[in-house]
């Protein structure tokens, strides 16, 4: 399909199948290989996997984080019970994360996919449109919260000036989640569009032409020809959207540290560590809940990758 691919195939045709007949490495080379792997592995185990394990362990204890490890009071599943029963922001946070997820799927993701399908047909100005849509992707989410302040500010924001309203879009707990979601969608759409555009490049043009010749309508072509070919990308996109919705943090932290209508699980963890009260055990239990949810989707993703790796 690609030129590099052709090179690789050609190589396979000529030479012995690659990677199969490995000569035994000399002791020196073996040392080099070990050295090349050692630093990255140590780094990722030290800063990702051990902390992940640490969060699980800490979630069964009570600890203000100031004393040594032996000041931890082990309380079993108490933290989890407390989270579910007597921690007011928890259920709103779960609800907000779910709304976040549903919203991202329904609007920016679908829009991004449609835009990709439209822009993929080398129409005039396609490059300009693409640039317009993915320019927000290079901006940080925190910055986007800042920029949208120009629209949402109660006294100086554009929306209130145009409609002559007095809504505090970031502050009013009835609307602020939606305001934040619109700002997020501004960025998310372009990201999804990019991923689909890349995937669509792999759709064989002759497939569509054949469908067009057969007189299939665009809608039919989309659902019967294009959508099925995009299946691997759809999977990637699902994983991206779920994980992004779970991780969402930056924009609400910039606005009000995730309070007052903007509670999100990610922000609650932050509040328990760098807020006024440092409750490490409690925060860890929240972290573990996030980890459990994400691990389901990480597993799905990895299985997909591994399947492709084995085939490749």
């Amino acid at each position, binding site marked *: 399909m*690609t030129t590099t*691919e052709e090179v*690789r195939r050609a*190589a396979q045709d000529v*030479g012995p199948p*690659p*990677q199969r007949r*490995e000569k035994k490495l*000399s002791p*020196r*080379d073996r040392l*080099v290989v070990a050295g*090349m792997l050692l630093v*990255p592995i140590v*780094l990722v185990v030290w800063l990702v*996997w051990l902390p*992940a394990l640490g969060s699980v362990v800490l979630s069964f204890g009570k600890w203000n984080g100031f004393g040594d490890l032996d000041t931890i009071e082990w309380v079993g599943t108490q933290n989890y019970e407390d989270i579910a029963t007597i921690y007011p922001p928890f259920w709103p946070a779960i609800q907000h994360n779910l709304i976040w997820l549903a919203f991202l799927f329904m609007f920016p993701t679908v829009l991004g996919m449609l835009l990709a399908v439209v822009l993929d*047909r080398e*129409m*005039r100005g396609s490059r300009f*449109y693409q640039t*317009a*849509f993915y*320019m927000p992707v290079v*901006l*940080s*989410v*925190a910055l986007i919260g*800042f*920029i949208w*302040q*120009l*629209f949402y500010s109660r006294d100086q924001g*554009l929306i209130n000036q145009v409609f002559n309203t007095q809504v505090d879009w970031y502050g009013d707990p009835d609307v602020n989640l939606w305001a934040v979601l619109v700002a997020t969608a*501004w960025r998310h759409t372009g990201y999804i569009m*990019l991923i689909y*555009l*890349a995937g669509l*490049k*792999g759709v064989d043009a002759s497939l*569509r*032409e054949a469908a*067009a010749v057969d007189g299939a309508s665009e809608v039919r072509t989309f659902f019967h020809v294009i959508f099925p070919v995009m299946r691997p*990308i759809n999977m990637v996109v699902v*994983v991206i959207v779920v*994980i992004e919705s*779970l991780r969402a*943090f930056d924009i609400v*932290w*910039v606005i009000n540290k995730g309070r007052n209508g903007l509670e999100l699980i990610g922000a609650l*963890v932050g509040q328990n*560590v760098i807020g006024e009260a440092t409750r*490490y055990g409690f925060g860890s239990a929240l*972290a573990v809940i996030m*980890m459990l949810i*994400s691990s389901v989707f*990480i597993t799905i993703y990895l299985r997909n990758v591994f399947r*492709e*790796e084995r085939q*490749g």
Partner: protein
Amino acid sequence: MSTETPVAAAATTAPPRQEGGVMSRNRGVIATVITAVLALLWLFPLFWAVLNSFRVYEYTQANGYLSFGGWTTDNYRQAWSQGNFGLHMRNSMLVTIPAVLLTLWLSSMVAFVLARFSFRFNLTMLGVFLAANLLPPQALLIPVFRMFREIPLPTFMSENGSMLNSFWALILVNTAFQLGFCTFVLSNYMKTLPHEIYESAELDGAGVWRQYWQLTMPLVRPALAALATLQFTWIYNEFFWATVLIQQGDKLPITSALNNLRGQFFTDTNLVAAGSVIVALPVLVVFFALQKQFVSGLTLGSTKG
């Protein structure tokens, strides 16, 4: 982290093809019009920010934002000095550039081993890096935070003698998180290199290191360039770790310094606009200069046929 979930999408560079021919002419026109309108809508927030960053606060206060006039460049001067942007920009570069270089170097080594050899642990290792890439950083926050507070650093590395509040913390954390994505992309790229180059290199007596550094690395330069562009924007944009691991205001990189500025700028939206433009400028420059690399970086995930 940037709330980016860097998952490599399946992508290939297909040969140029003709007009899709799927849409009928009429619908094609409608689609074009809708797309054009949406594109303008998408450009509007940035346009609005740039526009108002050049306007005097008193003027817009008196005449409303729908007026025209009151031009000035003072907001930039004021935002720059009041927000201490020079310092924060420097902090950002001191974190971002080393982190990008370190990420590319470490991940290219792992990728090379994964692509060059077929050890039994290859898949497991890829999984260890990739999964780390996808874990929510909040899930690791408490142990990392507490650990960094305990780790002493000599004062020439960190003024306050602790890993917390030091650039080292951010460089290492960002690197650890980005390794998975880069390893994945690079190893897929390296697998497309013909295997004979290594066989002839071996005949010439080149050891593993030389095969990596002198043979493979020059050949994967396009992928490295694409990843560098992408990683630069991601790490520059990283907010979460910088916010929680740096508590000393003058050490904050620019993206998380925004958080403090909000209070100071709150009363003057034009100042907010100027500040936003300043913060956006480095990534926008990179984006426009290296757009191709940026896009291909996002999409050159798996070049598997």
